[in-house]
Each structure stands twice: as structure tokens, then as C-alpha cells.
């Protein structure tokens, strides 16, 4: 049902160490821990022996909707930076914002988790602290649920897994468009039966 060729739909790649950075900040949610573990190992292995000091790597983690892999991130002993763990994304973003506010231009931010988490962290770092998207990498992990904003009542549902879905704010049946706002971090949900009320197509799973 999605329309190919929508340029605003983000394309996520895997996290890779940016050797140009001096300070590496990792933020993850739920199953994003796996991506952070892999990245942390690659950072420690270094590039031509240029591995950053453990003190130049920081980890922020919340289980989110789960699974909680915080224990796995804490393993590895003192050779690895220990994660700061938070009960929810709000707490993580608040601490991350404070941490970045004291950082300099050599920071690289790596984010792994659900799509809603990725863009919540980007908003904290970009709009709150001023880090540019050039210094941020994202890897989407877990089920392909999307953050969608209802264009009618502006309610955002952070994890929509089907198009069509019912808006939790106004109850309209919404079609999920692939148009994405990097500023708001949401896709658009548009009333699907405005022309013929009650004529609502069967919901389809969103595959990506």
C-alpha cells in the first residue's frame, strides 16, 4: 500500500564507528542493545590501533517496550564503558541532553531502537543541544512500528504497526503515508474514509 519513491522516508543503515570523532555517545532502546554491543566492540577494536579511550565512549540505555538487555550491556568488565540505564525514554533524553551540553564539536551520536525512539533522541540532540544530523547515525531495531501523527487532531501514536489504524486521539480511521517529517520525527496519518464515511479498507501490516 506504500507508495515507492517518497524521498522523505528515512533509510536506516547499520551503525559504524566514525574515526573522525573524538567522543562517541551511544543511545539505545530495547533490542537496540545488540547494535550498541556490536558498535562498542568495533570501537574498542579500533581502526589501525586508533581505538578511542574507554572514557571517550558513553552509553545510554532504556529497555523501552523491551526486551531489557541492560545486563548484557553491563558485561565486559572495566575495559568497556558501563551503561547508564533509565526507566524510560524521557529520563534517558534528559540525561543525554545534559551530557551533550557539556560536550564539544568532536561528538558523534549513535542511536539504536524503535523509529519513535530514534527521532526522540535526535530531537533532544539536534534541537536541544545543536548537534547536526551530520554527526548522528541511526539504526532501527525491533518490530517495524512507526510514529504517526494524525493530521486532523495532531495526536501522535508512537508505534503504529498497520495502515489503516484508528487514531487514539480523535478515533478517525487513518491511512499511513510514507511522507516523513525529520523535524517532528513522524509520518502522516490521513483520514481514509472522508469521502465515503464507513468505507474503511482492511488494515495491512506495515513492513518497514
Amino acid at each position, binding site marked *: 500500500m506504500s507508495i515507492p519513491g517518497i524521498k522523505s522516508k528515512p533509510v536506516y543503515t547499520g551503525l559504524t564507528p566514525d574515526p*573522525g570523532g573524538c567522543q562517541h555517545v551511544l543511545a539505545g532502546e530495547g533490542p537496540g542493545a545488540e547494535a550498541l554491543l556490536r558498535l562498542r566492540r568495533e570501537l574498542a577494536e579500533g581502526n589501525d590501533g586508533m581505538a578511542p579511550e574507554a572514557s571517550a565512549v558513553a552509553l545510554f540505555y532504556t529497555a523501552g517496550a523491551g526486551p531489557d538487555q541492560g545486563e548484557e550491556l553491563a558485561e565486559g568488565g572495566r575495559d568497556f564503558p558501563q551503561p547508564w540505564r533509565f526507566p524510560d525514554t524521557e529520563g534517558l533524553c534528559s540525561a543525554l541532553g545534559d551530557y551533550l*551540553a557539556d560536550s*564539544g*564539536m*568532536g*561528538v558523534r551520536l549513535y542511536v539504536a531502537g524503535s523509529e519513535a525512539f530514534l527521532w526522540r533522541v535526535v530531537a533532544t540532540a539536534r534541537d536541544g543541544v*545543536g548537534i*547536526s544530523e*551530520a554527526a548522528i547515525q541511526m539504526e532501527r531495531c525491533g518490530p517495524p512500528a512507526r510514529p504517526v501523527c494524525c493530521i486532523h487532531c495532531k495526536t501522535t501514536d508512537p508505534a503504529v504497526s498497520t495502515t489503516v489504524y484508528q487514531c487514539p486521539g480523535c478515533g478517525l480511521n487513518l491511512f499511513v503515508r510514507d511522507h516523513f517529517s525529520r523535524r517532528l520525527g513522524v509520518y502522516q496519518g490521513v483520514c481514509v474514509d472522508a469521502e465515503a464515511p464507513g468505507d474503511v479498507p482492511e488494515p495491512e501490516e506495515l513492513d518497514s
Partner: protein
Amino acid sequence: MITSQQPSIPVRVTGIDQVTPSVKTFTLEHTEGIPLPCFSGGSHVVVTMKDAQGQVCHRNPYSLTSPPDDGRCYRISVRRDDAGRGGSLFMHERVGEGDFLDISAPVNLFPLNVLARRHVLIASGIGITPFLAQMHELRQRGVPYELHYQFRDDDGAPYRDAIAAREPTASFYESDQGEYLDPLAILRDQPLGTHVYVCGPAGLINDVSAAATKLGWPPRHVHSEAFTAPPVGEPFTVVCHRSEREIEVPGTASVLEALEGAGLEPACSCRGGACGECETRVLEGDIEHHDHFLSDDVKAANSRMMICVSRARTSRVVLDL
């Protein structure tokens, strides 16, 4: 109404100030008294100079230094370069108050990043010019910035006193007094969201870029005013393959200027090897590249050239024109 599509804007020189022994500032107004387009800080115009016979003899880009939102006049500052190709000498010796010139609409290849939280401006000598307009813009927008201004001595420091009086964030470095700016020290403790801009000789641009890289700055946060005057060199012949013409390029003119002299009108904009507008396919011949636009791979392949600044290494070059 003046738009950027307009080929040129006729202006009258309404004022000339000698700001240092080697720098003159020209005030330009539209010949019909209508407002000039507003621009963004960092923009330049290309000034077309004509000799006594009305033939075009020079076309040089100059940064606009006047407040960007003031359409009553433009100001440009020209440093006299006795060893150059003659455009700056023409401006200094042949242009007087009341004279007419043609200028292009403003083009900006050195704009401020609108999302930046802080701006660090680094100038050397006449490289101060784009920052004069940019500082107007930043003051108006209330965005934090700091200026670092390197020069040899007072004579080589246009607008030093005016800047000192108006800009509390300015630092001055006089190399004759042994004072040199230290890019690492300037960039080290800048907060996230800072962008740095350099305008000056290649050595300074390289030093600032190297310091930024060492401190981990993302490349997109480092900006430099890249355009340079076309270099002089050996004469050679350009063969225009499609229009079947042969044109001689003298040692003191660029390919673009030689083509224009022959009545052709190739696409171009900055005339300094920065914008990419005049990119031309090379069918035969080796190229001495002087631009900041083509990638190293393309340059090595000799398959394309920027005709505004690059020259032939061979006595003959065939272009897809």
C-alpha cells in the same frame, strides 16, 4: 524588479574611499535609482569592466560588504594587486566617482548556516570582506559569533578600527608584531552546533581545516571562501568540437575569458572555480586543474575541466563545446 536571472545590473559609482593604502571601497547605486536586490551575507557580485572602446577587459568577483538588507547601495572593497591580471588595477586607477559599471546579481557561495548555534569567523587581510556583511546579519538575528582577524600590519587591515569599535567579540592578530591566530586554540572549546568560516590564503584555510579535523569537527561544519583569481600560465589553443572553432588562449586570460572574447557565451557564475556552473567535458588534452569543485578522481582522469580557472598542460585542448 531585479531577479537573479537578469544578466547584469547597471550601476553608477557614487563613492570611493581609500580605506588603507592598498584597498579602495566603492559604493555602487543602480543607474536608475531603483533599489538593488537584498542579499545574504557572504554573497559576491561579478563586476564587468570595459575599456575606453567599450570592450570588456576584466570580470572580477568581489564580496558585498554593505548591510545585506539595505538595497539603496552595494559596497565592494578591492585590494590593489600589482602582480595580478589587471582587474584590481583597473578598479583602482581607471574607475572614478560617477563612472558606470555592470554587475551581476548577487550570488552566495559562502553562506552562513542558518541552523548553527554559534559562528566562528576567521579572516586574513582582505578576506575580511564577506564577514562585514555576515556580521550585520548575525547581529540582527542575535546569533552568537566571534571574529578572528589576522593581518600583516595596519596597512593590511581594512576596517580594523570600525570592527574594533563595533564588535566586542573581535580578536586581532598582527603578524608584524609576532601575533598569529592559533586555529586549535580557537576551535578547541567551541560548543556543539558551532560552524567555522575561513576567508584568506590557502595556507590559513588548510590550517583551520586541519585543526577542525583533529578536534573531530564534522566536515560540514567547516566552510571556506574558495574562489581564487584565475592563474596566469602558458598560452594554448582551445578547439571547440561542436561549434568547430579554434580559439587562442593567451597566458594572462582564462579559457572562459578567451571564449567570451571570441563572442561565445559559455555558462558560468562564480569565475573562481567554486560553483561548478562552467564544468566542461574535455575530449583531448591534459588539464592543469585550479578549481575547488571537481573531485580528485575526475581531475586525474582529465575528462572534465572548469574553464573559468583551469588551463591546458598541452599546447592544444579539445572541449565539448
